[in-house]
């Protein structure tokens, strides 16, 4: 299978206020994804997961390394469901925006598409004319996923897409992602700190610590015999070991 994403020796640092030196956030991160693969990215808070995602999509400048992304219209579901939807627009407008950008769909056609997507992500049609501020966190996060899916991407970067959802809906959303993954060969970079969910969802998991990759492998092997102490600790706190 061809590679859809290749990151080599990625280094990212941020300028720090009040201090002279820059804060090194990612050090020599290399990873690759194949078409249609679900890659899990786990690690404790502040380990640099979101930074990798943003670097891949070119939202932050990188210091060193190469990023090759062969995917058509890569999309991202942002971690913070509160700031990733435009507060001034309605749900329907937000969901239509990718269509306006990429296709020549008529207004009516767009609305139809919006309705079907809403259905897919398990939301009612009557949410269409609401503003994001009138939605619950879970609903917002699902709208984010919906917007990302609208562009029919080949690669989806999902930054903790289900953390704000309760378990039943979590399962539903993951199911949705999985089915699209299967139908359209969608590759997903799944960022989470929930090792339980990842076990079932991912084809491969990368463990990140302090901006460095400490371990990677298939979930089953990784969970069964973690090589690194840190991985073990993570598994332990998740109550798996």
């Amino acid at each position, binding site marked *: 299978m061809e590679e859809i994403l290749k990151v080599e020796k990625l280094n990212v640092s941020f300028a720090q206020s009040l201090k002279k030196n820059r804060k090194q956030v990612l050090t020599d991160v290399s990873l690759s994804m194949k078409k249609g693969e679900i890659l899990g990215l786990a690690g*404790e*808070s*502040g380990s640099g997961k979101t930074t990798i995602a943003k670097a891949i999509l070119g939202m932050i400048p990188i210091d060193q390394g190469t990023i090759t992304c062969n995917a058509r219209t890569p999309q991202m579901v942002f971690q913070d469901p509160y700031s990733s939807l435009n507060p001034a627009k309605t749900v329907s407008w937000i969901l239509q925006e990718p269509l306006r950008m990429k296709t020549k769909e008529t207004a009516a056609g767009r609305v139809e598409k919006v309705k079907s997507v809403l259905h897919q992500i398990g939301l009612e049609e009557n949410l269409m004319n609401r503003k994001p501020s009138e939605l619950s966190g879970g609903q917002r996060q699902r709208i984010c996923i919906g917007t990302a899916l609208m562009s029919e991407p080949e690669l989806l970067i999902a930054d903790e897409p289900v953390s*704000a959802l309760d*378990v039943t809906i979590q*399962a539903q959303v993951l199911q949705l992602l999985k089915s699209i993954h299967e139908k359209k060969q969608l590759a997903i970079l799944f960022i989470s700190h929930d*090792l*339980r969910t990842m076990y079932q969802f991912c084809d491969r998991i990368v463990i990140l610590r302090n901006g460095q990759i400490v371990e990677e492998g298939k979930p089953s*092997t990784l969970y069964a015999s973690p090589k690194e102490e840190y991985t073990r600790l993570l598994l332990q*706190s998740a109550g798996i070991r």
Partner: protein
Amino acid sequence: MLLEIKQLTIEFHDHLVPETVVKNVTMSMEEGEIVGIVGESGSGKSMTALSVAGLLPRKDMKKKGEIWFEGQELLSLPRKELRLLQGDEIGMIFQEPMTALNPTMKIGKQVEESLYLHRDLSRTERRELALSWLEKVELNDSERVYESYPHELSGGMRQRVMIAAAMVAGPKLLIADEPTTALDVTVQAQIIQLLKKINEKNNTAILFISHDLSLVKDLCDRVYVMKDGEVVEHGKSEDVFYHPMEDYTKQLIAAIPVIDLEQD
């Protein structure tokens, strides 16, 4: 019996059609007991907790039922007397560590505020107590934390600060409304550990709210399951977890990702 909620019903009237968000909820808690409430989003968990803490908004809503805490009925208690309980006898930890702390007030001041309001202590005594609690919640750099502002701390640290602030006056009842959802697993585990320790050492009763059944199973003695504002099931947590009676509970349990390492 430390806390008894009898037939609690909460209705909102700020929309055209009154909305009942809590219906006939009855619960009870012993001293030193850890009780969990689980249920999906919007099922009325927070509302129940807030009504115990006396924090329900006063306008546009109707409350029915009784809440007995140490021989006092909270719903009919005048605001002034309720205030004496808040922070002193009843401590509360909120879901969002990011926003639940005052961004422009030093951590120390926020932690010791309950003391300032309820105890007649000198400034240094308050400080001592606050520092000791910061250390108890494993914020080892307590002096620095005391002088910091919330934005200078990580999410996990803030959540621990919240716990310290809730515990500083030694309440009999600690209400923890989803205290770990915003945290990553490692920190989450630490917080649960911490709550257990507090419960053991101080014999503080904890009302633990979460939508994560597996967490609740580990921590709580008993659990109430809520759906659409009603308690659908309750019992010992082991019992509910391994032998659920209601369909809804079964669904909740089924949704927990199962990791069967043996199979591979």
